[in-house]
């Protein structure tokens, strides 16, 4: 087995992309640093240049000016195919090779890199396990023989095949039904906890960005960075009206969805009554449970007895 590779830091340094004949740049003077091992979500309205900004990293789009450094090395200093083989790439339509089996698809980059057959086969099975597709059942199937959600899992496994320190994901779950999407978002979080890659994740869905991102970059029309911050900061202190509108009037509720009951120091219940909830419940769902039951508190049955969260405490938390 090859040793897992360390995640890398990515620096956008006044990165700019102009297309000839267009008045406004697609990406305008973008500067930000994505720390190693973090998920950075690029969000914004269409025309905000989020996909373009992502493609500047693996040079599917070439910079007009400025620089992007991966682990301290400018992307322009590397041969573009070499650069891309070291970056996992996942797109919304997946783009599995229809004439190859699931295993052959996953083996694409290892084969380009000249891995041995044995090592490649072993890695393929390992990755199918990781994305929760039993290798025995799925290895020899073609893309036409699996569902949309399964295809995106294979797409993710294929991108992870050569253990790249950096992943680019372009609206990977955008074409999936809501149930499959939620399941895959959670799988991604589980995999990310395990692998700690640096990930650039493009989405137009602010809720997805809040769920998946350690940091969120909001781009506005003309490819201008409106705000780059953690989800908490973005929701608590939007930089301007545009960001406030983009994150939505319900940003208070969204902030509540960032925290789960068992992450808080709760007071002992002392016989208080209210809906009984699991410690894994988000504060948003806890509030919803209070409103549903007309209660002023919820009760959690934890390892050290019954504890409660009151409505007053909840409003305090948002301050």
């Amino acid at each position, binding site marked *: 087995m090859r040793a897992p590779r360390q995640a890398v830091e990515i620096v956008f340094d006044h990165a700019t992309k102009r297309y000839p004949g267009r008045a406004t740049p697609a990406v305008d003077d973008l500067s930000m640093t994505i720390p190693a091992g973090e998920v950075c979500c690029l969000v914004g309205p269409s025309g905000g240049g989020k996909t373009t900004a992502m493609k500047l990293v693996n040079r599917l789009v070439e910079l007009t000016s400025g620089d992007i450094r991966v682990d301290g090395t400018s992307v322009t200093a590397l041969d573009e*195919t*070499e650069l*891309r083989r070291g970056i996992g790439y996942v797109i919304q339509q997946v783009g599995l*090779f*229809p004439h190859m089996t699931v295993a052959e698809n996953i083996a694409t*980059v290892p084969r*380009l890199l000249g891995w041995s057959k044995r090592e490649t086969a072993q890695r393929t099975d390992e990755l199918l396990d990781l994305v929760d597709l039993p290798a025995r059942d799925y290895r020899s199937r073609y893309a*036409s023989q699996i*569902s949309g959600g399964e295809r995106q899992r294979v*797409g993710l496994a294929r991108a992870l095949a050569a253990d790249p320190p950096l992943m680019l994901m372009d609206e990977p779950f955008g074409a999936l039904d809501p149930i499959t999407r939620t399941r895959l978002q959670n799988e991604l979080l589980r995999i990310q906890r395990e692998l700690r890659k640096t990930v650039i994740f493009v989405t137009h869905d602010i809720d997805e960005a809040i769920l998946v991102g350690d940091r969120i970059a909001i781009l506005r029309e003309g490819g201008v960075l409106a705000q780059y911050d953690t989800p908490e900061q973005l929701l608590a202190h939007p930089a301007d009206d545009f960001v406030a509108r983009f994150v939505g009037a319900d940003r208070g509720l969204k902030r509540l969805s960032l925290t789960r009951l068992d992450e808080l120091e709760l007071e002992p219940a002392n016989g208080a009554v209210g809906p009984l909830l699991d410690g894994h419940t988000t504060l948003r769902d806890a509030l919803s449970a209070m409103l549903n039951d007309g209660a002023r508190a919820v009760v959690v049955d934890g390892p050290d007895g019954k504890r409660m969260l009151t409505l007053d405490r909840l409003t305090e938390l948002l301050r």
Partner: protein
Amino acid sequence: MAAEPVIPDFGEASDCVSENRLFCPDWVRDNWDPVLQPALVEHIKLTAIAVGVGFVLSLGAALLAHRLRYVERPVAIVSAVIYTIPSLALFQLLVPVTGLTVTTVEVALIGYTLLILFRNFLAGLRSTPPEVLEAARGMGLTQNQTLWRVELPLALPAIVAGLRVAVVSTIALATVAAFVVSEGLGGPILGALRLDFRTEIIAAGALAVGLAIVADGLLVLAQRAVTPWASARRVT
């Protein structure tokens, strides 16, 4: 048998043959080795060479047009113009250059395959879905690797489809070669037409039809063998 025949006998013609009935199996049996079998083999050769050379030329042109868009139009126009010339007229045009030879026949037959093959090959090469191309680029496949590992394999169904049409139409068209050289199944057909000998017309004609059906069937089997993914059971 009262007297010796006055006219020398050119083989014992059966009643069936001398009465020119619709079909005489005994004639076919007697003439398989000297007439029909050699004609069939020649016919296969004529077709194989025409489609083989046509395949190489068309694939080369299609690959070029796939990479350089401006190549498509001139190749498409030239091959379409050739295709519209009636075969007998094309032979007439070629005979002064290449004479009454197999070359004349082959040049014409090859010419007729170009339009079908070039169009099918190019359409096949262009049939790769854009997201598949983007994934290939994004993973770091070079342009050549994308061609050999992705675009060409995905073009196979269109390539074989083009070959099927080309093979069947060349088998049919190669009978006309008899106007130039006595090669292929066109020889017996043309000779029998002049004598109005029905058995030979039917036998040689049936061989041409049978050859076309068998060749087409073989290509279908070949396609299934090289594109297992295309016939994989779909699950959605």
